[in-house]
């Protein structure tokens, strides 16, 4: 386990460092900080049949770019350049995954049963569809936490008083 005080993905994407008041204010909810980072790690690395880590990173980059989350997109791009996943070929189901991810990211109201059938048709079993939906939905949360913290920084967050 890493120390909860070390900068995590959200700190780095939002530009927070240990010693900053806002970095400290986030640790008022240490459990949230830890569970958020643990979600990120599990969503990317838990083995899922039919859903490689490389394809999950490709989905994450696409979601962040679609939502205008530039610093977070850079994080997932860097992970995708890691040796371990760099040469992993995309699955034949990747276009269907990217389509599902972009729709879910931009307008959750457009979700329907046909979108899940398209993923099944592309070869994903239900446990892989659950993993993909969790990843995309998590990214909608993560990128908003980053955006909110960036806005707090811009407004001169006072931090713990």
């Amino acid at each position, binding site marked *: 386990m890493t120390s909860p005080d070390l900068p995590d993905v959200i700190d780095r994407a939002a530009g927070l460092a240990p010693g900053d*008041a*806002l970095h400290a*204010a*986030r640790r*008022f*909810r240490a*459990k*949230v900080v*830890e*569970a*958020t980072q*643990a*979600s990120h790690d*599990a*969503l990317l690395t*838990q083995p*899922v049949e039919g859903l490689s880590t490389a394809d999950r990173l490709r989905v994450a980059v696409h979601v962040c770019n679609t*939502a*205008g*989350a530039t610093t977070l997109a850079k994080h997932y791009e860097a992970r995708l350049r890691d040796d371990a996943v760099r040469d992993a070929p995309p699955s034949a189901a990747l276009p269907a995954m990217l389509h599902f991810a972009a729709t*879910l990211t931009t307008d*959750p*109201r457009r*979700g329907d*049963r046909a*979108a*899940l059938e398209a993923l099944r048709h592309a070869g994903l079993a*239900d*446990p892989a*569809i*659950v*993993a993909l*939906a*969790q990843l*995309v*939905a*998590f990214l*909608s*949360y*993560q*990128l*908003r*936490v980053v*955006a*909110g*913290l*960036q*806005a*707090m920084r*811009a*407004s*001169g*967050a*006072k*931090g*713990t*008083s």
Partner: protein
Amino acid sequence: MIRRNGFTDETLEWRSWLEPLQLADASPLQLEVLDESHPQSRTSPYYLTLAHQPLMLRHRSAAYNAIMYAPGGLPRAERELGAMVVSVTNGCVYCTSVHAQRFEQLAKRSDTVEQVFDEPATAGTNERERAIATFAIAVTQRPGALGADDIAPLRAVGMSDEEIIDLLHAVAIFSWANRLMQNLGEPAGAG
């Protein structure tokens, strides 16, 4: 009971479009994570669907429960208000019904719920509630364009940075929760 604009504070059911895990097939880890996620998760199609990925569910539930239930910081009724405004903005009828009920239980009133169902952009019985609703909509609809101007009204009603972070977490995690509820299944009639 409130019914307006397609939203309700009645108890709804939810039906999965995927095959929920059958309890008889559940691994010890899956049972453990179900039990730590929610008191009724063993009979909930939503949790049984998510239990196909138990470690992803474990960390999601830990984040969710810490964000919505932890003591201190932003009053819980105000976290529920943020959750309800996001759910109406995203059109998630199921999540809206649950969090309208929670708000009513915690705040002991339902006037704000009627206002949110009618028009979240102007909802709120006082400045603080209106600032919360406005921020929840901004985070939901334009995360790429948030700035200092979105934080100032929260400071103006007296929120500390810790309270603003609590609100941000509550609002952001409903971008997560709504997407699962709206894209893995659909609400079914009143239970």
